[in-house]
């Protein structure tokens, strides 16, 4: 009987851990990066590159997760934001000669603009698979723009991005990039955490759970869907800018459907709707392929199987495992 628990007593559920206090979480978001500071001392150039790539995928996953995990819309426009950010940084640096660090914000803003565009179908009431297909087509359409707009993008061969610099300092080693990337990744996580814990984040999750009831609470759902897409585009766009700086070469191939599945995998394996999950997913999924270099296809096969297993047996991702270890990892887990 559901109403068995008398109202005057707390429901005696001892197993459930309460969401941690905001201060505790903040500690987590600052302490982990601090612990990572000496990392470049222990890694060779290649391993450092992989570590940097993980940091690139942190904002990408965080941004993507907002739309599919927190807002709960099946939209695949994240690769479009990622590509726009990378190309924005690349074009500004290569064609206009801007130092890389000044292109980060514009890349984010371009991503946000793409986010607003990608939200149009959702605002017009398109949902479910229809929304997935439309946003997927949007991303692919952009990829053709990269391929065909040769004077600006360099076409299929892409463009070389000049060595990144920050405030006049050139980032010549992977280790130097690491520190800049770390700051950006931490900012993406901390700021997104602020949003998710505020009335905005609550509105996103309310919309996901019950759009009708959300509107009945006076939430202008359209405005919040637009906002979620814009912030998602902004954060992922910055990830794109970091990617351009890391790889030094931006090509259309990097933003195809395979990339979409990779990013989808990061979020699903890490944990839908969970910030901790976004970070963990980025680390696991980015590091894993490095074990399969020189074995074309093995990585795809393994990822495919891994995702299948996660959906069947760990639907809330690795974050739910961590949450069992310590309440500080307890996050907004995906529920259905």
């Amino acid at each position, binding site marked *: 009987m559901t109403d068995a628990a008398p109202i005057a007593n707390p429901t005696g559920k001892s197993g459930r851990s309460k969401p941690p206090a905001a201060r505790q979480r903040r500690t987590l978001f600052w302490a982990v990066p601090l612990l990572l500071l000496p990392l470049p001392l222990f890694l060779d150039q290649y391993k450092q590159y992989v570590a940097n790539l993980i940091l690139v995928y942190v904002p990408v996953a965080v941004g993507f997760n907002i739309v599919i995990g927190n807002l709960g819309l099946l939209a695949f426009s994240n690769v479009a934001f990622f590509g726009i950010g990378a190309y924005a940084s690349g074009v500004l640096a290569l064609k206009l000669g801007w130092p890389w660090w000044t292109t980060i914000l514009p890349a984010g803003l371009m991503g946000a603009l793409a986010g607003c565009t990608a939200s149009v179908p959702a605002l017009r009431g398109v949902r479910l698979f229809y929304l997935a297909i439309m946003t997927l087509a949007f991303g692919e359409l952009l990829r053709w723009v990269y391929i065909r707009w040769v004077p600006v993008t360099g076409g299929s061969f892409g463009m070389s991005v000049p060595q990144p610099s920050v405030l006049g300092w050139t980032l010549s080693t992977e280790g130097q990039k690491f520190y800049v990337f770390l700051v950006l990744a931490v900012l993406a996580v901390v700021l997104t955490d602020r949003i998710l814990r505020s009335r905005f984040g*609550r509105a996103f999750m309310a919309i996901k759970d019950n759009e009708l009831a959300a509107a009945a*609470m006076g939430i202008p759902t359209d405005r919040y869907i637009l906002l979620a897409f814009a912030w998602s585009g902004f954060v992922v766009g910055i990830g794109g800018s970091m990617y351009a700086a890391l790889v030094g070469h931006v090509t259309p191939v990097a933003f195809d459907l395979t990339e979409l599945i990779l990013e989808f995998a990061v979020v699903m394996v890490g944990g839908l709707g969970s910030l901790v999950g976004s970070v963990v997913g980025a680390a696991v999924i980015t590091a894993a392929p490095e074990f399969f270099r020189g074995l074309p296809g093995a990585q795809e096969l393994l990822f495919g199987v891994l995702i299948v297993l996660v959906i069947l047996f760990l639907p809330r991702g690795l974050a739910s495992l961590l949450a069992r270890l310590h309440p500080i990892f307890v996050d907004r887990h995906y529920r259905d």
Partner: protein
Amino acid sequence: MASLLEISDVSVRFGGLVAVDGVSLAVGAGEICALIGPNGAGKTTLFNAVSGNAAISSGRILLKGEPIHGLAPHQISAKGVRRTFQNGGLFAGLTALENVLVGLHAKVGSGFLGLLAGARASERAESSSTEQARALLDLMEVGHIADELASDLSGGQQRIVEIVRAIATEPPLLLLDEPAVGLAPHMREQLVRIIRRLAAEQGVGILLIEHAIELVMAVADRVVVLNYGRKVADAPPEQVRADKAVLEAYLGHA
């Protein structure tokens, strides 16, 4: 004096079906009006018309003398009409407290950029509304479950949290869609207490749909009976109970 809510001659049609057929009723401030009738009588449709979830095909719906039909649900909500849902409209992935905070959404008022910059003002807005939400949950005797996820609450607790959420902004009008369905007796008593307090202490006008007649008898000042989309009775509870037309409505034809 104009009533708080005035529904006059409202009809709602879906295709060829007339779900609500020329119904008029009024609810005053601090008044509790119950809407009863057999399945398919049009009760929920009438509710949806008031909250903006269904379009009316004729008639008028006035809140404090001002027309609200034709507005979007979130606009009607902003004007002070809050509702609960028949099948539980709580946000399952949020805690009880967060659900109430969503109810307070419009009042929190932190700006987006200020929030990103970590401005004191937005933190203050958050923490003061959090306190307010906790106080409300305490007031309604469910303070101890504030940090439980809504999906982990019992059916009764969910109902009460949903009501707390609806009244968080102190709306003048509250619509309750079958608040007692599936509730254990002791929870029903608590519900009755809360509904009466809202009307008496805060002057909230309440329109509720309910099948549990003992609850209707206990709280309602007036009972409106619908059958086949039409109003067949509008009277104090005891009178309705004895009304022949009401019994007929429930019996059906054969």
